[in-house]
């Protein structure tokens, strides 16, 4: 019996091993018989940016740049930054990557440089660059956060006007809370601790970056630390939202997906979130939602904005020039970017680009808000999203996320929060 079992299992394994021999272990280096160079391309998949979307963008690009064979890789989870770094530490950094933070990789010489000449078509070629050296194509703009709100919740609570100032935000939150609705939705449960930062991001935009655009540079040079009065004010105001019950531990424990679903189902009035959210609600929900900028003290329009997030190329790609050519081409195909607009809510930061038909109502409103900020308001960077120089050290965001959860759960106070950030920052930069 035992021998038979062993034999059967053995035979099965052998058969499958033979079959699988051709699927696994395919080499990823160099050129093949036809002279095409094979390049790996690290992507990520979401319900909107699915396999078909990526494959189509690759096909379109290959039509423009001949002689390239693309092997598409998929990050196994949402944390593609960590995955890219794991691959790098094992010597397997992909040749081309999308939306991987270049910090660290760039300083270590792992990424290929782009010149400003090559980026003629880009609106802000040196955004998030390393003192002018470009390692990641700044193809997309995102505003982080916008305040998305439920019109039904505002109506039910008797909030007639969208809050423009900090005091109006507090007043509106009070009414919403009195109506039995969570005023400001902050999520970050389970593995999604990264998602809890957006309310604080809004406050750091209005309280820190709007007043002192050089805060991060000063932090990097050691001229200031997180006990900077502006930063303390931002955290204190966040604490005020918690103390008054506008940001609650209950919603905090939801994951990003659970939280978004709950907000769309009517649980919560205001949802501070990046502009990518604008394409998530279905058509019916779009009608019920609106958007405004995170309110500043005096009501002036301040918009935290991140421009970057595009492709980068490994300096050890089998053919770096070809890989760069391909990456530049991929980034400029109208349909590729249109897909990013429709599926991921991206604002495309190219001179030669037309917004496609069929964008959602919230997308249009978010984009209008951004354009308004560019013309009439103040555009600032997004805390924790900065790439290049200056930026926060790799891994620092996780500490901020942990500290936020502690603050919301009452495990720490403003002073403890500031101390924790200072300590971690010293640890990571010393």
């Amino acid at each position, binding site marked *: 019996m035992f021998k038979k079992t062993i034999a059967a299992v053995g035979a099965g394994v052998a058969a499958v091993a033979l079959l699988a021999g051709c699927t696994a272990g395919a080499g990823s280096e160099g050129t093949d018989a036809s002279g095409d160079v094979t390049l790996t391309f690290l992507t990520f998949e979401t319900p909107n940016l699915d396999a078909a979307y990526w494959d189509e963008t690759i096909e379109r690009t290959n039509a423009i740049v001949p002689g390239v064979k693309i092997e598409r890789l998929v990050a196994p989870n949402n944390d593609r*930054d*960590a995955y890219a*770094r*794991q691959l*790098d*530490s094992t010597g397997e950094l992909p040749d081309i990557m999308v939306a991987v933070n270049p910090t*660290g*990789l760039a*300083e*270590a*010489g792992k990424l290929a440089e782009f010149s400003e000449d090559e980026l003629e078509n880009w609106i802000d070629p040196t955004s998030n660059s390393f003192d002018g050296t470009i390692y990641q194509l700044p193809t997309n703009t995102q505003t982080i956060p916008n305040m998305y709100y439920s019109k039904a919740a505002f109506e039910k609570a008797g909030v007639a006007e969208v809050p423009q100032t900090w005091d109006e935000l507090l007043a509106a939150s009070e009414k919403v809370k009195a109506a039995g609705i969570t005023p400001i939705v902050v999520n970050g*449960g*389970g*593995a*999604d*601790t990264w998602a809890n930062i957006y309310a604080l991001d809004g406050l750091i935009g209005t309280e820190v970056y709007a007043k002192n655009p050089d805060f991060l540079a000063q932090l990097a040079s050691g001229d200031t630390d997180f006990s900077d009065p502006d930063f303390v004010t931002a955290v204190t105001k966040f604490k005020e939202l918690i103390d008054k019950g506008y940001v609650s*531990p*209950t919603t*905090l*424990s*939801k994951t990003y997906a*659970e939280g978004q679903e709950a907000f769309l189902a009517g649980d919560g009035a205001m949802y501070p979130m990046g502009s990518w959210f604008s394409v998530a609600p279905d058509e019916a929900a779009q009608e019920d939602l609106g958007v405004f900028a995170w309110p500043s003290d005096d009501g002036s329009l301040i918009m935290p904005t991140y421009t970057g997030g595009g492709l980068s190329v490994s300096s050890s790609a089998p053919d770096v020039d070809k890989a760069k050519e391909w990456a530049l081409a991929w980034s400029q195909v109208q349909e590729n970017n249109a897909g990013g607009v429709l599926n991921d809510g991206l604002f495309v930061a190219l001179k030669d680009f037309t917004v496609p038909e069929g964008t959602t109502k919230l997308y249009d409103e978010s984009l209008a808000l951004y354009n308004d900020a560019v013309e009439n308001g103040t555009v600032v960077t997004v805390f924790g999203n900065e790439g290049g120089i200056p930026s926060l*050290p*790799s*891994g620092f965001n*996780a*500490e901020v*996320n*942990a*500290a936020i*959860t*502690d603050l919301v*759960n009452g*495990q*720490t106070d403003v002073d403890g929060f500031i101390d*924790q950030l200072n300590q971690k920052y010293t640890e*990571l930069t010393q």
Partner: protein
Amino acid sequence: MARRRAGEEWTVSISSTTRVAPTRERDEHRATPRSNGVIRRGLRRWQEAGTFAVFVLPSLAVFTAIVFVPIVWTLAIGFTDERATRPETSFIGFDNFVFLLTNPSFLQALGNTLLITAIVVIFTNALGLAIALMLHKSGWLYNLLRSVFFTPVILSAVIVSVIWRSILVDDGLLNTTLRSIGVTDPPGWLSDPAIAIYSLSSIMVWQMLGFAVVVYLAGLAGIPTELEEAASIDGAGPLARFRAITWPLLAPSLTITTVMLMISSFKVYDQVAVLTNGGPGSGSTATIAFEVIQTAFVEQRTGMASAMAGIMLIIVAAANLIVLRVLQRREVTH
């Protein structure tokens, strides 16, 4: 005699790391005369070397290349300030270790790891034994139930974590049920920093329980029924019988489950990553393995991460050594 035998075989099988095989038997076999003359001795030495080369060398070579060298390598990196993002690296002696042993978040991770290990070892053993006693009967029902308890063992930690997360989240199955029976404010099993680590440990106990059940069932099957019957006739109650006979004879089972559970719980990572990401908040469920991976791959501080791994290795080795010694002494006494 029967009692002695069951115990002895267990002892031999499990404590092979530290104890010499029964000497009497060995000497008997040695006595066989086989060699005389220099040539034959030389030939034998060649054969001996050949046997070693065939039987041990392949294992040794693979182990050395894949585990031993990397461990030594890792330990060595722990004495440097290596960072993946910086080309130059220098030797900094014990700085990393000094930093870690005074760093609250590392000490918290250390404490969490020890707490999880303690909970998993104690509760898995206790519940596993209780269930094994309950299932120690023949019949299809008990065979079926044994498989039920064993099934989680073969699932991946990711699967188990996803299933349990759907039960334990704030508005998950458990709290919905609790609310429906009138509990107004059920605890946040995964969202309360004071509770999350116990939820995490309980999930691990659930997953590994079947392993303990199976090992204890095997141990129980090795206890001759005559012993129990004899004690029963002597008037010993069930509890007295358990204390005097069953429990001492299960000592080897306890050793094997404890060592295996320690091995699995010291390096717990997957459950933490899926269920809590080290939170809620600052490190309330972070384990050493979690910290090591975070430090190495996210913060890209390989020197510091290697020092963490070094400390972890020392603690794990010490704990296992102590536990093995204590448990095996018990086996010997009985």
